């Protein structure tokens, strides 16, 4: 079964002559558990596409189905709850909350949902991410790589079926990059999550199950790299 189905998404900024077509009739599906990389040049529409999938932004036309649920048919409040239970986000800029500790940052989506974290799962995640020694540190006391690992932890804490990562290694050096990436793949596999990741780096894209290329708002399926 397809976890994600994107159907005829178009996104246009501005109108008439000044109109910019960021996405042009994009359609694709991703089965559960697949690790997908999206590549493309700056301004090609990759981030716009990812934001549409995550329902952070609304398309001009088209539909996005996650677990066969039409995300854009939901009301704002319903969508917020759906998002925090089903989608994990990892940003290039980490976007951790500076006044929360590592552990608090990770369980933040659960706290918003008035849930208590499963302690074993949290400890497992902290161990897998190599953060168990740092659980009470503030983001400002961590390196970039460590901060991104916290962000991964935050994205995974609700056991979302879909993880969206927008250049998660864009701010990291190559050593940290490969570490973070390996972790992301490991946890995704361990918890059976679907990952869609934007990257600039062909080497990273190469390790994905499937690669999409976005160019001038048009999506091309480059197929599986390792299959």
């Amino acid at each position, binding site marked *: 079964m397809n976890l994600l189905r994107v159907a005829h998404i178009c996104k246009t900024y501005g109108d008439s002559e000044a109109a910019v077509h960021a996405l042009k009739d994009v359609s694709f599906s991703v089965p559960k558990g697949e690790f997908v990389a999206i590549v493309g040049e700056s301004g090609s529409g990759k*981030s716009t596409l990812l934001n549409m999938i995550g329902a952070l932004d609304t398309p001009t036309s088209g539909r996005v189905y996650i677990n066969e649920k039409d995300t854009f048919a939901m009301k704002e409040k319903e969508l917020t709850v759906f998002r925090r239970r089903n989608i994990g986000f990892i940003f290039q800029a980490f976007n951790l909350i*500076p006044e929360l500790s590592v552990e*608090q940052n990770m369980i*933040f989506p659960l706290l*918003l949902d008035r849930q208590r974290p499963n302690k074993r799962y949290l400890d497992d995640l902290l161990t897998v991410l190599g953060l168990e020694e740092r659980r009470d540190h503030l983001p400002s006391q961590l390196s970039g790589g460590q901060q991104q690992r916290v962000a991964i932890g935050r994205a995974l804490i609700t056991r979302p079926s879909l993880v969206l990562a*927008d250049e998660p290694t864009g701010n990291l050096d190559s050593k940290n990059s490969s570490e973070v990436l390996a972790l992301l793949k490991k946890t995704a596999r361990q918890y059976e999550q679907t990952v869609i990741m934007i990257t600039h780096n062909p080497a990273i894209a190469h390790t994905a199950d499937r690669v999409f290329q976005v160019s001038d708002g048009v999506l091309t399926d480059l197929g599986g790299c390792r299959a």
Partner: protein
Amino acid sequence: MKSYLSLIPISAKVRRRQNRMTLLCIIFAVFLVTAIFSMADMMIRMEQSRLAEKHSQKFTFQAILDTSMGQTLFLIAGVLFLLILIAGVLMISGSINSTVAQRTRFFGMMRCIGMSRQQLARSVRLEALNWCKTAIPIGVILGTVSSWVLCAILRFVVREEFTTIPLCGVSLVGIASGVVMGTVTVLIAARAPAEQAAKVSPVAAVSGNTGSPGQARRAVRTSALPIEISLGVHHAVSAKKELVLMTGSFALSIILFLTFSVLLDWVGYLLPQSASDADLTIYGESGVNCVSPKIAEAIRGTDGVENVFGRRSVFEVPAELGQEGLPQTVDLISFDDLDLEALKKDDILKKGSDLTNVYGDNGYVLAVCDPDAPLHKGDTIQIGGGTLTVAGLLKYDLFSGDGLSHGRVSVIASSETFIRLTGIVDYSLVMIQGKVTDEAVAAINALLDEGLRLRDQREQRTFGTYVAFVMCVYSFLVIIAMVTVLNIMNSISMSVSARSKQYGAMRAVGMDGRQMTWMIFAEAFTYALAGCVIGCAAGLIIGKILFNILIQDHFAYAVWTLPVSRLLIVVLFVILATIAAVHVPAKRIRNMAVTDTINEL
């Protein structure tokens, strides 16, 4: 661009929304000072022309300043100037502070591309002064116009002693003080932020390590409260400078409110306004009851007379008070119904007193005595073979100069009771209220028998002064409240703007609009609560001290009580101000697209 300073108006244009509140703050400060000093000036001019008319010679400004009225006016204006200066500096430095904090990266970049510390500090200062260019003229115009409106109200509505106040006078003193106020507040307020901006290291721009709200020293406690409330409170408490400024401005306005309301009490004691104040009084030269009720009846028909009522009195009547140590005599005084009603209207009756049985001849009376000779409601007094029951007590002695009874006991009875007990029908005093003309006074005079005198008190009514004072205090309080609300709105809005990136991220990971609003509310409420506690505590202490100096030292019967209703007003105001402050920024952040901020570095 001729010089680097040309950047200032350009950046002001771009940051118009953020600057709007700062502009409003400056306008308010300038407006207040211009209005206050213009009013003081107009009062002086009125006094000048009044004296000139009286003494038919020109009085100089200096001569007026030497009079006690002139000095009092300018002293009050001076104190207000200082208070507004403090409030203005608090508010404006608050907003300049936030704009500087938000632009650390920008300043870092400026340093990177070659701006020196001095240039940076100068540009922040000049940017602040740039606001004065628009804010001061607006404030001055508003202040002058509102002084015209106030003068018109005094002249046409309050009238009394204000009929000669100039109407559309332009006060140079008012304008000058407004301009000085605007410039000085801005310069003082911009000092610290300018230094702070100059300290920004060029590295801040390149590393992105801006030290703005992003830096936290301590983690939030998240166990007790919902996460969004904990975060909101933490936002308020962690930024020390903001906390001090916001709490300070809240506390300052509460202190002003509680202090100024003591001034209202003071005027109430100083110029007591009684419903039984007479315009004309008739009394006998001999001092005993000798004004016939027929005369009172005849006066009732005179033009302009609204009310006529009288009092009878017999002093040192032997009486049994049923308690040892109490005097053996009482002073018995009769009040007409109108006079009795006035006691209630003027709030002179002690708590628990019941007037209903005093009317008519039911044997109930009101008693006036010192606290050390205590009579209580329900006590009985044996007098002239009859028994009187005390139905209530007065808060102070109406019949003595200082409000104390000095060991005497006075009993106020209705006319009917008094006549039954004493058989005396004639009044000792007849009081007349109304808009009585000089001709009517002559007509009343003609009615009087030999040995009766008429005292004309029409000129002594202090109602106009009282109303004018109360009006000034209230309008000042309203303005203070508005300034506080504006200030907290501004600061919350700034604080939200400064964190918008963080809020965007929170939205992305699942915070909903309601949680967002609660978080911002918690932040605002923390400031408000802290300000409320400090303001109420300090305000009560200062109010009590002021009460002792102004009132208790001069009016021995005055008793200070906790101003519960005023405290309730404060609490209500604080809650409303918080809601008002949260509404707009919360809406803005709820409507902001999540994608706008999340990938900004």
